Structures are given as structure tokens and as C-alpha cells.
């Protein structure tokens, strides 16, 4: 029972209080670039949830079942990046096959998930915090969900901003950064829940 409650706590914390985009500021490039419309944000969010969950689990197996027993923990960065690249490549082939529209909408940002620091960051945090496999599953899924929720919220705010009149000098990236900052403050406020 306590294992399961740990799982829930870690998942909740990863989504809200320790949101990887808005409290650690990881993966900001696609966060800004893909939040222009809710439709593409949804696609990108779903892709990140999938990649983060799968890579965290695979990297857990690689680290604890292969690297630690053989004493080759120094290979973790190399192995994590390779496994992330493979998962993203498979995801790219899959999206290209089933949804040409989403594939075209995501363009360069789909292969760029490979070098998205949020994905690698989640795997590294999972090792640092010595999570069990179950907790890693929750953490990977939660972090992905957290990033996706932040991205979707941002795209919603931006689609409202697009139709509003802004003071000169605040248009474009400026208002986006300010919005991200305010959203980050709101997410930090959730820390009290834990």
C-alpha cells in the first residue's frame, strides 16, 4: 500500500509541484515554439508523454540492471542519450505512418525531442532520486504529463493573446516569456499541497 501511495505522490509531484517545464525550466525551446496553437501543442505534448514514460523505464533498466552491476555507471549519459534517440526515431516512424498531418505540423521539433533536455533531465533525476521501477514509471509519466499540461495551458493563453492588443515592445517572444514566468509562479504555489 505504501508503495502505491509513493507512486501516486511522485506522479502528482511530477505533474504539478515539480513541473519539469515551469519549476526546472527544462525543454523551453519546444515549449515556446510549439505552443502557438492548441492542436500542435496537444500532439507535441502526447509525444513527450510517450517518450518520457518509455525512456525513463528503459533507462531505469539500463542503469540498475546493466550499468550498476557491471560498475559502468559512467556510461549513463551516453546510454541514456542513445536510448532516447532510438525511442524518438521509432515514434517518428510511427507518427509519419499514422498521421501525416501531425508529422508535418511537428516538423523539426519531433526529431528534436531527442535533444530535449526535459527528457534527459527526467532520466537523470530518476537515477539521482533512486526511484524504484514503479516510481520511475509514475515519475516519467507524471513529468511528461506536467510538461504537456504546461504546454497546453501556454498554447491556450497564447491563442487568447493573439487576438488581444498588446503594448508595443511586448509582442511576440516578450509576452510569451512573461506569461511563462507568471505560470511558473502559479505552479510553485502548488508546493503547499505536498
Amino acid at each position, binding site marked *: 500500500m505504501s508503495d502505491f501511495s509513493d507512486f501516486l505522490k511522485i506522479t502528482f509531484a511530477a505533474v504539478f509541484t515539480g513541473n519539469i517545464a515551469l519549476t526546472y525550466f527544462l525543454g523551453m525551446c519546444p515549449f515556446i515554439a510549439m505552443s502557438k496553437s492548441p492542436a*500542435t501543442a496537444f500532439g507535441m505534448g502526447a509525444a513527450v508523454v510517450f517518450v518520457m514514460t518509455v525512456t525513463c523505464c528503459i533507462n531505469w533498466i*539500463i542503469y540498475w540492471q*546493466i*550499468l550498476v552491476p*557491471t*560498475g*559502468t555507471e*559512467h*556510461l549513463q549519459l*551516453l*546510454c541514456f542519450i*542513445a*536510448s532516447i534517440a*532510438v525511442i524518438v*526515431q*521509432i515514434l517518428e*516512424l*510511427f507518427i*509519419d*505512418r499514422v498521421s*501525416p*498531418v501531425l508529422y*508535418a*505540423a511537428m*516538423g523539426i521539433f519531433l526529431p528534436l525531442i531527442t535533444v530535449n533536455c526535459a527528457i534527459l533531465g527526467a532520466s537523470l533525476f530518476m537515477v539521482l532520486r533512486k526511484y524504484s521501477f514503479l516510481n520511475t514509471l509514475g515519475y516519467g509519466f507524471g513529468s511528461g504529463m506536467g510538461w504537456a499540461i504546461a504546454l497546453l495551458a501556454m498554447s491556450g493563453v497564447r491563442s487568447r493573446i493573439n487576438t488581444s492588443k498588446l503594448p508595443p515592445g511586448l509582442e511576440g517572444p516578450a509576452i510569451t516569456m512573461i506569461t511563462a514566468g507568471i505560470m511558473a509562479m502559479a505552479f510553485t504555489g502548488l508546493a503547499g499541497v505536498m
Partner: protein
Amino acid sequence: MSIYLTTFLVSLGISTALGVIIVIADKLLSNYGECTITINDDKQVVVEGGNSLMSSLFEKKYFIPSACGGKGTCGYCMVKLPDEDIPLLPTEEIVMAEKDVNAGWRLACQIKVKKNMSVWMPEEYFMIKEFHCRVAKTETIAADIKEIELEMIEPDSIEFKAGQYIQVMVPSVGETVYRSYSISSHPGNCKSLFLNIKLEDKGIGSTYLHKLKVGDTVNISGPYGDFLLTGSNRQAVFVAGGVGLAPINSILHQIFQDNIDRKCLVYFKVKLEEEFYYLEQLSQWKEKYANFSYKLVVSDIPETESFDSGERARITKVLEDDFQKISESEFYLCGAPKMINGIMEYFDKKGIPSDRVFYDKFE
């Protein structure tokens, strides 16, 4: 076991396992097998699935106009897919006009061949052929600009209209790359054609063409494009940005050789003075034909340098100064998209109807 050996074995094992996974995924997910493309209901070609429709058709020697070489920025490679239900892609939405989308046109460079499909394309596309040519001349005519003469070998002549362009096949690793260049010579000479090539930073097409020597062979396809002189009697105002002079030069040759009685004014705009070329030819025409005049415009010349042979200003500023003289003309614009978009915006503001403006953007 030594740490070095363990590290080596573990890295090898993990990378092999990941490699096997990716190979299996590739076989399962991106193997579309052989697909049959039916063209205009009566021609069929069998291609390897997974590539773009444009490159698949090019491979089978069915040529579709394209200025950007399949990057999805020019919007020229339009075909219809009568039996397909592929939703409009965001990459198509950006470059295509709404009326073309509503008429069922799609961009062949963005559609992938994943199953048997039928395609409809205009009959004139079938006139486009592949040519094997030999470089007869290559000469530097301005800063970073070469004039290249291609002599037709097989077939030994090419029929084209003044203002059209060809595509050069650029050999590269993997898929063949195509780059578009306007013909600068007169259509009367069907045995060879001239190109004006500006060396672009990291441009694979221009780098390839600039390295060619006399005697080298090149494959091209063409002719493409509808940047042609109309039959109107209005004054023709040409705006050439850099090597945008190429198709305009071809049209001017046509006007003078066919004795077309039409007043012509050329604005030749470059960034720096050393980019001007064909000036001798322009001045000879000016002396010989009373109907012809030209104006040189330099936009980015440093304040310290003098320039007396023309204007030093933005092209829209020069057009504004001459507006009274040219407002009733027909306009032919050729050059970089930024320049053309700027002029189109200006014309729009001035109320010049779009049916009097023709352009060829160098994407």
C-alpha cells in the same frame, strides 16, 4: 575484468541491442513496399513507397515544376489527387492560395507515397523533358556570379519560351537534389542555353554549378514556368533583383529580335555595385532602341563610396519617385522573395491591379 574491457563490452552490447530495435522498427513501420501511381488515368508507374510523390515521379521521368527543390516553400509542384482523402497538411496551408486548395490542388513535394494512388496533372507537364548537356562556357561576370552556357547533347535541342526556367540535377548522397535556374538566353537559340548563377552560402546547387568546368556534363529537366511576356501594348516595367535579371534578359532578347513594339523600362537592383552584370548589353540596347531604357539601383552601398551611374535607395523608394511615369504599366518582377513581397505590398497600397503584375520568386 578490467574496467576498460567492461566499458567496451557494455557499450557494444547496449548499442547493438538499440541498433537491432531500430532496424526492426524501420522494417515494420516504414516499409511501404512497391506502390503503383496512376497518372491521369492512363499511365502507370511502380515506385518504392515512403518517398515524396514529387521525387517518386521525378525518378520515373515525370517532371513537375518546382523552384525550391521539394522544400515546400515555392508552392509550384501542384497536382490533384482525385481518389485520395489525405487531409491538408500544415506545410501546404502556409504556401498555397485558398482558391487552389478549394480546387483540390496538393503539393507533390509534401505528399508521401504510402500506397497505390492516382494523380492528375496538367497535360503541359508531359512536355517537360530531361536533357543531357555539356558545359560549353563558364565565366565570372560579376562578384560571385557566373554565366554558364549549357550545350544540348541528348536531345540536341530544347524548345522554351523567354522567361522560363530549368531544373539542374545536383548529384548528392542519397536522393537526387534538383535546383531551379532561369534561362537568360533567347529562345531562338535552341542548341544551348545560358544561366546566371550566383554562388549562395551553403547552396548545394550554386556550389555544384560554380565548380563545373568546360566539358563537364550536366543533367537538366525543363522547361518550366509561366513568367512570360503578355500580348498587351502597355509599357513593360521589369524589376530585376540581382540574378533576377536572367529571365528578364531572355524576354528582352525576345522583344528586340521579334521586333515587338513595346516600351520597356528595366530597374536593375543589386545590393552592392560589383553585383551588376550585362551592363554593356543594356547600354547598347538603350542606344539602339528608343523604346528601351534602364535604371541601376544599389540598395546597400556604404555611405563612403560614391555611385553616380544610378540611384542608391530602396527599390520601392525609386518606384515611388517614378510612379507617375509607370503607374499604367505592366510589371514583371524577378528576384528574392523579400524584394518581390515588398514591391507587391507597395503596389497593393498604390492600387495597382494584381492582373498587371507578374513575378518569379527565387525561393
